[in-house]
């Protein structure tokens, strides 16, 4: 009977040795007979998990928390000292896009080589070759040596090959933070398709938005130990408290509700040109790009955003206040709010996005303080607002 689990890890521990003076050659080894002095540390300490088939599992944590080590153990690249990992199903890992591309070979040659390293036969690769090239959008360049590729092209080809290996389990390590926004969206769509096909995804990330979007369950690792494992929202809360030392007691932070007749599919906080951004300076424009999806026509719709700090609402607006009634919504819709000349500084702000009926009586989808961005200080003034100030001095 096939197991319902795609990946099972039991008491997995991985030790690394930090060498002080490592003899890297036989010569040194012979001269220095004492042997190497090293400190041991456990990058993973007794971590257990069970990932069901079809689950999207996120592993989060700060740098050095062991999350990438865990992913490498799952991929079979590293072997844990203790514990046991068993995987069921064909696995492909996107630990580094284009790993194994050889600069002197053409795109075409690299596709075949990379695919065979990832476990495809030549026949299987030939069958998906056109799709790979199409997906990477590299048709005119495919017979060019990849050393002449831009880094974006390189990464696109790497991603295209990896996702066409057709794995049952996909391991992803933050690689999605590459390419332009359009290609990122394409990658995310592809990952969504994976999810819908009932495949298993294990994702390592520190982008909370990413985790919220993709994961069905998550694990928070800190110093190699599991802090919490469970629904993404619980994990995010715990993560925020640890990472930012925040002690939000309000229960509504990061919460979602609504009947989902219209779904918030994706929210991007971007600069005035639509490029994703986290950090702003006073005077910048900020765009909130909201992708909505309605499975059936809905005629009573209002979309709104709210920006707040730890306590207060700084700005709230919606399609009615903006006098842009939305009419009937069906299928996918993108809505963009642009906030001009941000006056705030020196704080982290939280963004709420909501879709409701016009009288706010019915909530379709509400994401309370779900997203965040940071406003930096200009240094021209103190306080939370940077209102342009001029100063004159005249003798009297």
């Amino acid at each position: 009977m096939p197991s319902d689990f795609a990946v099972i890890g039991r008491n997995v521990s991985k030790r690394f040795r930090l060498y002080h003076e490592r003899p890297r050659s036989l010569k040194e080894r012979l001269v220095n007979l004492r042997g190497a002095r090293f400190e041991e540390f456990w990058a993973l300490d007794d971590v257990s998990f069970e990932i069901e088939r079809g689950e999207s599992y996120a592993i989060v944590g700060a740098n050095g928390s062991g999350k990438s080590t865990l992913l490498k153990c799952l991929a079979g690249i590293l072997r844990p000292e203790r514990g046991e990992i068993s995987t069921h199903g064909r696995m492909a890992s996107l630990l580094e896009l284009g790993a194994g591309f050889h600069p002197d070979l053409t795109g075409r040659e690299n596709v075949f080589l990379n695919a065979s390293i990832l476990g495809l036969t030549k026949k299987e690769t030939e069958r998906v070759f056109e799709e790979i090239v199409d997906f990477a959008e590299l048709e005119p360049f495919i017979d060019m040596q990849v050393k002449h590729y831009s880094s974006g092209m390189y990464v696109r080809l790497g991603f295209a090959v990896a996702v066409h290996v057709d794995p049952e389990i996909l391991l992803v390590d933050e690689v999605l933070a590459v390419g332009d926004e359009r290609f990122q969206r394409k990658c995310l769509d592809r990952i969504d398709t994976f999810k819908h096909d009932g495949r298993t995804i294990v994702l390592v990330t520190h982008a909370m938005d990413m985790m919220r979007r993709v994961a069905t369950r998550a694990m928070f690792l800190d110093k190699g130990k599991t802090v919490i494992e469970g629904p993404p929202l619980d994990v995010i809360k715990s993560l925020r408290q640890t990472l930012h030392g925040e002690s939000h007691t309000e229960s509504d932070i990061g919460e979602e509700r609504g009947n989902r007749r219209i779904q918030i599919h994706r929210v991007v906080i971007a600069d005035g040109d639509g490029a994703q951004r986290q950090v702003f300076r006073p005077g910048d424009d900020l765009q909130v790009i909201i992708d909505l999806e309605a499975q059936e026509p809905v005629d009573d719709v209002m979309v709104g955003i709210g920006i707040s700090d730890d306590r207060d609402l700084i700005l709230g607006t919606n399609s009615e206040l903006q006098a842009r009634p939305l009419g009937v919504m069906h299928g996918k819709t993108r809505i963009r709010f642009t906030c001009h000349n941000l006056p705030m500084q020196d704080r982290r702000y939280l963004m709420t996005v909501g879709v409701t009926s016009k009288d706010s009586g019915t909530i379709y989808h509400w994401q309370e303080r779900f997203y965040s961005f940071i406003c930096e200080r200009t240094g021209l003034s103190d306080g939370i607002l940077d209102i342009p100030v001029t100063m004159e001095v005249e003798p009297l």
Partner: protein
Amino acid sequence: MTGIARPEASERLPEGERPGSFVRYRELLGNLVRKELKIKYKNSALGFVWSLATPLLYLVVFSVALTSLLGQGMPEYYFFLLSGLLAWNLFSAATSASTSAIVNNSSLVTKIYFRREVLPLSAIGAALVHFLLQLSVLVGAMLILQHYRFWDAGLVLLPLAVIVQVLLLTGMAFVLTTANVYYRDVQHLLEIALLAWFWLTPIVYSTSLVSGRPTFWRFYLLNPMAPIVLGYQRALYSRVVDPETGRALLVDAPVGWYAQRLGYVALLATVILAFGWMLFRKLDGRLADEL
């Protein structure tokens, strides 16, 4: 353990280690060999011609310049030399390339899981392709220059010697490529060792120089490359005795003696391979840590 079906042994292995995936790895091996060859000749106008040009050049240089110096009157000394060099080139090219195979591909080893054996094996594979090209040049030259003597019973030693040599190379590759991950100077030490090893092997000189002293000769034959090179020479050069002077050019013994010597080397090679394989398997999971 309730609720979780205990997976079958084969199911617990990563995909790549299941028996059915052998075809995939054979293909991967082929692709890696092709990659090695492509890269080597990618930016050269003549491409593969180069690997043919080298032995041809040797043929010309040695026949014209060195025959009188080194040949000591050996008939067709250049064919004697090239038979031995053919074997040696395969040996030194394959050992050097396979020793650094894992370290040179560290970006792959630390990022993607696949059977790492294919890396040293593909290095040997690429060297074998060169070897076959050079062999065809040599045989071609022998036919053109009407050196038909190799067409005798000794020819069976050629496939035998090649097989034994590949066995030896594979075993050494596993030991050396693993050692080189831990101690990076193994590849440099190997180069020095190869230089000495070359002169301990009867390539430029005839064994008749050393076979006269029984004790020395016994130790001399412990060098696994000596019987292998002798096998190539017996098969291709195949002049055992100089008809004019009656002097032994190779070892004056029946083909069976050569085969028996190759058999001993095969035994040794099997032991090395078994040891190398165990070492490689044991340390395989740690390789990514050390890179």
